[in-house]
């Protein structure tokens, strides 16, 4: 039973990160019908920018519980700006082009970001300072839960609830949903779709940046090419939940994290990735729109 609860915590921790990153994929897809393959690399970039900001701030005599929120805010702002620039340069000119062009452009943008990280920070892994978040662990009946894990779980949950309420209860949220259903009709109703798309990139990128910072603070080592792995997993999570669907991305991320942890724990760590794709294939066969995919269609 110990093992079960430990894997539950392991799975939820990584699952929260997947979910945060998956939200970026799903929101962009929802409105633009574009898979933003550069999103994973943006997440990697945020881990690097977060580290730079952190190194600048920790030199001063400011306590860490003030430094860390500032790091999160500055990184989110920087990454949101980069996300918007990315949209302007790589996607907007291609908005009326065949969809494949935009996908290729996204892949290219991802490569530019990845190689840019390597050029600026070098190919060796960068490492987060060990003492940013106090190394506190609680041992409850043989199950270990770290302070950082708790922060990841709680903060992710809060962000997701806020996002859900924002999209479903506010006027701008309604505009986002309207743009997702039909951009042309939304325009005719007086919605500035361009502004909505910029907003989507701001929200998606900043959520991704939180994910990137979690990766850095929890796993310590960050790599210039790590965006690919996290991006791919988050992308799968978004598909599992139903791409374009916000609760779906959250659910997909959590499920994927748990699924990975339990397969690795009870079946074989060797096969954890293979099972991820088996799960993806099964879901695509039986529910091609993802677990929560259809509900969106009904709402339409």
């Amino acid at each position, binding site marked *: 039973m*110990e*093992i079960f609860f*430990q*894997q539950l915590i*392991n*799975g939820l*921790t*990584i699952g929260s990160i997947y979910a945060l990153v998956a939200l970026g994929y799903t929101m962009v897809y929802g409105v633009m019908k574009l898979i933003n393959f550069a999103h994973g690399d943006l997440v990697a970039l945020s881990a690097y920018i977060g580290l730079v900001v952190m190194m600048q701030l920790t030199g001063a005599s400011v306590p860490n519980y003030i430094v860390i929120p500032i790091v999160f805010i500055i990184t989110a702002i920087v990454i949101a700006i980069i996300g918007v620039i990315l949209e302007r340069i790589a996607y907007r000119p291609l908005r009326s082009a065949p969809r494949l062009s935009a996908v290729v452009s996204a892949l290219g943008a991802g490569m530019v970001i990845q190689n840019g990280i*390597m050029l600026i920070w*070098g*190919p*060796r*892994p960068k*490492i987060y300072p*060990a003492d940013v978040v106090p*190394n506190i*662990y609680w*041992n409850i009946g*043989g199950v*270990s839960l*770290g302070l950082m894990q708790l922060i990841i779980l709680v903060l992710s949950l809060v962000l997701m609830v806020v996002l859900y309420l924002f999209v479903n209860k506010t006027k701008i949220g309604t505009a986002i949903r309207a743009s997702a259903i039909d951009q042309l009709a939304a325009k005719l109703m007086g919605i500035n779709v361009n502004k909505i798309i910029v907003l989507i990139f701001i929200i998606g990128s900043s959520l991704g940046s939180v994910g990137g910072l979690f*990766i850095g603070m929890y*796993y*310590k*080592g960050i*790599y210039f*090419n*790590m965006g690919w*792995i996290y991006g791919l997993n988050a992308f799968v999570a978004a598909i599992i939940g139903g791409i374009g669907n916000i609760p779906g991305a959250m659910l997909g991320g959590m499920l994927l994290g748990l699924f*990975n*942890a*339990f*397969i*690795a*724990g*009870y079946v*074989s*760590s*060797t096969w*954890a*990735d293979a099972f991820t794709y088996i799960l993806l294939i099964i879901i695509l066969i039986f529910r091609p729109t993802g677990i929560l995919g259809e509900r969106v269609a009904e709402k339409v």
Partner: protein
Amino acid sequence: MRKIFLSLFLVLALVVSSFAGGTIKIGVQAPITGKFASEGQGIDNAVRLWVEQVNAKGGLLGKKIEVITCDDEGTAVKAAICARELVNKGVIAVIGSYTSTATEAAQATYFRAGVLQTSDGTSDTLVKHGYWTFFRNSSPNSAEGKFTADFFMNFKKYKRIATISDYSTFSVDLEKAVVDNTKKLGGNVVYRGKVKSGDQNFTPILTKIKSYNPDVIYFSGYYTDGGLIRAQMVQLGIKADFVGGDSNDNKEFIKLAGSAATGAYIINVPLPEYLPYDIAKKFLADYRAKYHEDPPSIWTLFNVDGLRAILHAIEVLKTTDTKKIADYLHNELKDFPGITGPITWDKRGERITSAYMAYEIQPNGEYKIVYPTK
């Protein structure tokens, strides 16, 4: 008569080809970009530094040495392309690659073209093909496996042993060598698992291993994963020791593992600073002076040693005929003073001179040699 003409022609062709070019071309096949970029760049830097020094002294056989680098990204596909490219550019010897996978993918091409290759690759399969062109310049996995098993059973006396490897040829072979040798000594291996390199989240497999209650977790992969495995082990409250294979021997391991690094064991051939050789000290100082950093790892130095042995053979034999150089390296070179210690190769191109050590990482990040005990 025709035969005589033919052989005359061949000799002439050989003479022309060896004197025609103004330079002796040496290839570097290494992962300049990609996951192992820092190691690959280290190899390239070190080879270029040594060649620069030789050229400054007037070169070799009155010719300058030219270095041609090809980036294999650590992958088999790019390695095969690099091999073709370097052969076409007329190199006589290739230094590299860093990974066993990339080295193996290029071996056959160099063998067919008669181009010498030295690599730090440690996978045992590398010397099993019987290519006369290939010289393995680090210690084989089998030797490390034997040493590691000895450390487990005779020194630490572990009762329950868990092992983890990644999917690389190198890591799989090393883990197998460790397990085989441990079993020979009567060791009890309770768990063998694999992780995907670069995964970062190793808590699922570690949680599983925890249920086997091992005394030690052995990891045969690279430091980028090893450091995280160690950190996550401690976080999960696993009391077992951590023993890392040679590729965990990297300063970044300690940074990645953080405070959890203390007490971790790493098994490798001696570090340069533990070697009594002046040449090692001088080369490290030169490297620092030129690149303002230390070589990324001991593997850099193994590769330079390969280059040095080949250049030494060319100097002694006064020829760039690769067949003759290979014969010399196989049969006559004995205890050539290398940066990483004396170098001798057996008939298969296996380096037979090397000594392993087990280090324990101290709280200040220093290494302490714990085995063999002096």
